[in-house]
């Protein structure tokens, strides 16, 4: 049983690679990350005050989501969306646990409502004036693959394009020892059901409980990013396969055992 979709647009953000074009250059030619790229994204879609104050997951998710919609030529207000993150906003989790242990009544109401796993989806739908359905999910080491799968399921079941947004941020405080993530990373895809006569990269997904995840050699600094961020660990092999000419088959971790077989065309 397979799921077929097309990729209409891609958004990308990591320190030194502020968009998909720069990431492609790095993935294809081994270009080094840009040294003067900003340390945090500043998505134009958000109101200026939120661009400064919003938590990192919101900034990264909104940035890559807007890039992907732009590349796809899709109006952000029209797309259903799937947001996926391995650990969510670990910086707020660290802050909240530290505050609760010290002075629980000092918990800030804004940080608390920002602590929900669907905070980036909330900010995105508000900024994009989007009333379509949105979900926010997690699947531990399979978070990228289950996001890709769920977005493809939604695109096929509704016969509509769907926005997938995947991110993880840098872990902070004592939690960082058990929730390991040393780099920020986000990627977004607009996925749509295949349409006749439209030439776009295609993705075919199949679950195989016996398949072993592919170990793919990543160029240069991307290897460090993949080992330093749980979402990048799966998303970067996928991105590398996308830009390679070989149209390979890739297996991504998908659950306790087994994998999601991803065929790119």
């Amino acid at each position, binding site marked *: 049983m397979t799921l077929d979709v097309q990729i209409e647009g891609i958004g990308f953000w990591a320190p030194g690679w502020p968009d998909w074009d720069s990431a492609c250059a790095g993935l294809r030619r081994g270009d080094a990350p840009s040294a003067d790229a900003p340390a945090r994204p500043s998505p134009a879609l958000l109101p200026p005050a939120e661009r400064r104050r919003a938590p990192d997951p919101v900034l990264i998710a909104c940035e890559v989501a807007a890039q992907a919609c732009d590349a796809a030529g899709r109006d952000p207000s029209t797309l259903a969306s799937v947001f996926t993150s391995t650990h969510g906003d670990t910086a707020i989790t660290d802050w909240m646990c530290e505050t609760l242990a010290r002075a629980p009544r000092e918990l800030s109401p804004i940080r608390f409502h920002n602590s929900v796993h669907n905070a980036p989806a909330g900010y995105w*739908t508000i900024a994009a004036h989007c009333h*379509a359905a949105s979900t926010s999910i997690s699947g531990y080491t399979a978070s990228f693959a289950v996001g890709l799968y769920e977005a493809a399921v939604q695109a096929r079941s509704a016969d509509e394009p769907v926005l997938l947004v995947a991110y993880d941020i840098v872990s902070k405080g004592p939690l960082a020892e058990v929730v390991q993530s040393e780099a920020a990373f986000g990627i977004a895809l607009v996925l749509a059901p295949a349409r006749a006569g439209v030439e776009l990269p295609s993705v075919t997904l199949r679950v195989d409980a016996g398949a072993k995840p592919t170990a793919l050699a990543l160029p240069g600094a991307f290897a460090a990013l993949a080992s330093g961020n749980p979402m990048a660990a799966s998303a970067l092999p996928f991105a590398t396969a996308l830009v390679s000419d070989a149209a390979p088959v890739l297996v991504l971790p998908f*659950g306790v055992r087994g994998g999601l077989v991803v065929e790119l065309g």
Partner: protein
Amino acid sequence: MPNPIDPVQITAHTATSALGHGRAAHARALRERRSGLRANDFTREPLACAIGRVDGLEAQPLPDGYERFECRNNRLAWLGAQGDGFLDVARAAVARHGAERVALLLATSTSSIGASEEAYERLEDGRIPADLRRPEVHTPHSLGLFLAALTGARGPCLTTATACSSSAKIFATAERLLRLGLVDAAILAGVDTLCGSVLYGFNSLELVSPEPCRPFDVARRGISIGEAAGFALVERAADALAPRLVGWGESSDAHHMSTPHPEGLGARRALDDALARAGLGAHEVDYINLHGTATPKNDEVEAAVVAAAFGARTRASSTKGWTGHTLGAAGILEVVISLLALEHGFVPGTLNSTTLDPLCGPQVTLANEDADLRIALSNSFGFGGSNCTLAFARGDRA
């Protein structure tokens, strides 16, 4: 408007909450109008509020071999999964269909964050204490890791965390997977437990009532937080006697992170989509289990949406006066309550409330009522403006 869908069968379902363990305990407490709320005895520092606490979790460790998943949330999942023999039925479905053909769809708002909170209370030289240095209990998918090991299901396994709509949305996820033929069954679980984050967090937003919550009362003062585990096994419809999911609708408010859209735009869109997928008119709905958190704003907006969309014969109530607001578990807990209402032919009223807000239409009922119910809806709304309405049909009578 979305196209109608084929019904999905609810083969088995169960809930554990402050009302007790399993469906019969819930039906009894609802019938007898016995609330599960009590004065807060959970937080270390006093916080004057009522909570819906599940008794005995502290004394019920996970079974041998599952020690790495130890935390309050997974303990509640373990207790809840045994309700009404659910775990046996779920494992039988895995054996019947094959492990890869059974999805495991989890829902939670705070997952195992209680374990992270505990770790920070007793740091060892600034480090997470050795017994809690387990990544499995510091991540949103903790429940998924535990239940995958417990049930043996090997199909798609993901946790939905959209705050208080989480465990309603997994019914929609399951329907899509079944419709596309990607799986033959899905095990659904929504579990959320009491923790400092939500008690002090909602308190900081001034949304926690100092007294047991009074949904839709003109003098309501906010929510009472509870904990619960709800489970359902869903398959393609085959058994006419089983209740069925007949529709779902999901939407985004696109308004504010923690306040509903003032005209209930998102709520109305979720409702309209659920009815369209069910192929039903509003006049065919017999009962609505409302989100009804008892915050001033939620109830005001939801009451207006219901008053505008439904006629006087449709009955509606919030059952949060019994269970408290169980956050990420509220959706599936209230599905179980809605299915009990259909099965037993009664409308649970709205406990603790005495004087309805004049904004309420004739649908909202304070008293329990006996009624022949065929179609029930359940509303769930969450932070971030995440809305979900589910529609269920009663199984045929034997």
